[in-house]
């Protein structure tokens, strides 16, 4: 009877094994020409301009649509990253900037065709750019940062030439046209689907593509997968030939451990959102290629609300800055995978650089922290909450525990709050959180851009709610400063203010860990922090 029971108890497992044995998965012959990319997120719209679109949607649109221009790439510590200072033509064969910097003229490629075979004309470009600044879509706020606000600024000179007029010589105008949003749309096709309520066809473009990009959409299952196939006639890449992979499968796999298994087994070719611990073990095994690039346009902070007591007192903020266990946090949260923004030494107490973000001269020094607390009139400490969102818990949870422990030593009692993502962003927007960790990213990382967007005004991205007129004035002035030395000087001034006011504490720039099959080549860290499928090829 003992055997009977054993048999019955394991019947389920036995049946499973039987079912699983035999036939190897039937793979198409084109596997080598197919890129399978797995991600924890999902594509939710085919037009990146739709409010609420995800980063995966941004990445997809880079391949399905062309823009007038594109960023070049450069090597940074042996790794390829996007290059803000090299702007190459995409749909534009070439471009001219007028000597006064007020006119940008784009000469379109003569051979460029949309995916339905019709030629790309200046009319399409004009319609697409007009849409970007007129329709209630995301491109509006983006192009605003490049001084493009009105349809009048875009003029068709002839069927292959388009002219952009600027009110001021704005350094960010040209780079803005290479970002995700100003896609060039097949205007004839889109207009057919426009309605009086929706003259810019936003509803239709959300679920259809009408572009001239390197890849043609094959299937789109929101939340599951997207399959794109190569457009053989596309030649807008730097090498003037179509993209390498014939097909790209973009698949959502929510569980990070499963993503790690998939890429390790060779079933997936590329993943960029693994947990740091998995990346470390995969790297140690040495079978896969791991390219880690510090996300040099992103920063993780510990933020304090400068308007809420006790954080309205600069000495409290300084006390916190000297009471954080930076090294332990860096190890626990990121396994050291990133670029630290703490622990610098400033010999004469002045910033070493005018570039933001910079390494701050702060380190764990509890005695100094206690002095600052005393200076703030709070020698006994106080109680507060430290918040982070669920989506970041894999890095923020260990970090929060260390913050709590360390601040406890100087008498600051911390309650850890783990908030659902939507709740966290709402509270940040309403300026209700006193003390929390968050991150920022800038597509066009320049010092004045960071200070204007993240340290100015009563708006959501001003995490610390700092209100410093001097800082705002310098940042605004720097925006249109043509002289590089003066710009650098302004940057140093801004950085000095940051360090003395300590509105929030910069921690680090986490790595983008791209884990890929050994045969994959050409991976480049892009400004949108996703993969540009056009960069990749297989050996």
């Amino acid at each position, binding site marked *: 009877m003992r055997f009977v029971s054993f048999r*019955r108890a394991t019947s389920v497992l036995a049946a499973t094994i039987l079912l*699983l044995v035999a036939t190897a998965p*039937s*793979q198409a012959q084109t596997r080598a020409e197919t890129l399978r990319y797995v991600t924890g997120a999902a594509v939710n719209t085919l037009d990146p301009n739709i409010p609420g679109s995800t980063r995966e949607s941004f990445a997809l649109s880079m391949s399905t649509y062309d823009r007038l221009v594109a960023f070049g790439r450069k090597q940074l510590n042996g790794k390829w990253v996007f290059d803000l200072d090299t702007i190459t033509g995409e749909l534009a064969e070439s471009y001219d900037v007028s000597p006064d910097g007020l006119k940008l003229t784009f000469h379109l490629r003569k051979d460029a065709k949309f995916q339905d075979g019709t030629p790309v004309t200046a009319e399409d470009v004009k319609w697409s750019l007009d849409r970007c600044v007129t329709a209630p879509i*995301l491109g509006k*706020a983006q192009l605003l940062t490049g001084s493009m606000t009105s349809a009048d600024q875009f003029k068709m000179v002839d069927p292959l030439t388009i002219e952009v007029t600027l009110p001021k010589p704005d350094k960010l105008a040209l780079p803005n046209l290479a970002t995700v949003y100003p896609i060039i749309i097949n205007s004839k096709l889109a207009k057919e689907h426009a309605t009086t309520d929706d003259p810019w066809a936003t509803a239709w473009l959300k679920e259809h593509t009408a572009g001239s990009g390197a890849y043609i959409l094959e299937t789109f299952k929101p939340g599951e997968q997207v399959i794109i196939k190569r457009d053989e006639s596309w030649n807008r890449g730097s090498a003037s030939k179509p993209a390498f992979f014939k097909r790209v499968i973009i698949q959502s796999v929510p569980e990070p*451990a499963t993503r790690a*298994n998939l890429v390790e087994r060779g079933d997936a070719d590329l993943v960029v959102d693994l947990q740091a611990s998995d990346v470390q073990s995969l790297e140690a095994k040495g079978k896969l290629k791991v390219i880690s690039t510090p996300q040099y346009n992103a920063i993780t902070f510990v933020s304090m609300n400068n308007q809420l007591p006790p954080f309205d007192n600069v000495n409290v903020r300084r006390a916190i800055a000297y009471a954080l266990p930076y090294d332990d946090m860096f190890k626990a949260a990121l396994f050291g995978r990133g670029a630290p923004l703490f622990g610098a030494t400033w010999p004469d107490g002045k910033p070493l650089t005018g570039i933001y973000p910079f390494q701050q001269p702060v380190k764990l020094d509890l005695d100094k922290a206690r002095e600052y607390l005393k200076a703030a009139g709070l020698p006994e400490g106080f109680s507060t909450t430290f918040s982070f969102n669920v989506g970041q818990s894999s890095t923020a949870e260990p970090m929060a525990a260390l913050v709590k422990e360390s601040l406890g030593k100087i008498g600051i009692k911390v309650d850890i709050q783990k908030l659902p*993502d939507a709740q966290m*962003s709402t509270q940040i927007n309403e300026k209700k959180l006193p003390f929390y960790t968050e991150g920022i990213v800038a597509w066009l990382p320049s010092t004045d851009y960071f200070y204007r967007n993240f340290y100015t005004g009563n708006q959501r991205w001003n995490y610390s709610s700092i209100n410093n007129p001097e800082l705002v004035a310098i940042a605004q002035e720097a925006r249109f400063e043509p002289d590089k030395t003066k710009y650098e000087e302004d940057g140093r001034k801004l950085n000095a203010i940051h360090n003395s006011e300590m509105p929030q504490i910069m921690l680090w720039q986490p790595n983008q860990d791209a884990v890929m099959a050994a045969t994959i080549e050409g991976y480049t860290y892009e400004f949108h922090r996703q993969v540009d499928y056009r960069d990749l090829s297989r050996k």
Partner: protein
Amino acid sequence: MTTGLGATLVRAGRRLLSSLPALFGVLVFTFLLMRVLPGDPAVFFASGPNAGKEEIEQIRKQMGLNKPVPEQLVYYLSDIGHGNLGRSMMTGQPVLKDLRERLPASLELTFTALLIALIAAVPLGVVAALRPGSAIDHGVRLFCALGVCVPTFVSGLLLIYVFYYLLGLAPDPTGRIDVFTSLPPSRTGFLSIDFLLAGDVEGWWAACRQLMLPAVSMALFVIAPLARITRASMLVSLGSDFVRTARSVGLSWYKVVVTYALRNAILPVITIAGIVFSTMLGANVLVEKVFSWPGVASYALDALLSSDYAPVQGFVLLMASLFVLVNLVVDICYGIADPRVSIE
């Protein structure tokens, strides 16, 4: 006099009608609950690097959140009346379309898991009841305890590790079908049935292989309640007068145990199976996440985390309706298992 079948149908119809007020209550309650919960979906979805106040207002208008709550409720109820569940911000699709695509995935998985669980649990329970206190009984108890103790995502990850990662027997745990296999024309939404209808045996086999690991990890978790209830119910049944009589007149072992004892013991098992089924459908979110299964539960969880109202409301309504249906089916099964039962 109504016939047996007729009576069952009348009973089912009456049951269905009486559940409508409850469904309406669920509808209104979920609607209000979502609005009371902290977290503003507009702010969450306006997270592009330059999204400011204007974008937030835009999304709020798009979601209809700029109107007062009672007015929103009226609009919502009238939309539901027209069969419109709203649009998901997360996937950008109408909720109805999302649910229609995802429900078959969840149902297929849950049915398979329940089937596996029943096939394993009922014999286990019967064997344990036949020899209470024996090594077999303890063995079954141990197995059940293990099944319950190990959370489904742990057993899921474990199964993946062994069968996919180490042995390479299972296909990669990413959804319902290998990405390189072409899908059959969708008729029922159940891939295993659609493939058979399309006459594609290879595809059917691929779909079944994909289904096995998630179904087994879910089944492991529910074998315990089913086996335990079978055992308890069988013990009562085996100790009753009619079984003693059946034994004393020398009926065969099979006739005594299966025909008399088991048939009488099966009622509570059906009840529990019904409850287990409904729970599994909503609670299999962890399994769905681990196996990237495109089901309704993981869909609802994602929506909840991002405060995407329409999908959550749609999901709760769907679950409530399914619960009503499952209870109905359980009632009808009662009638078949034991003709004396008539629940009014």
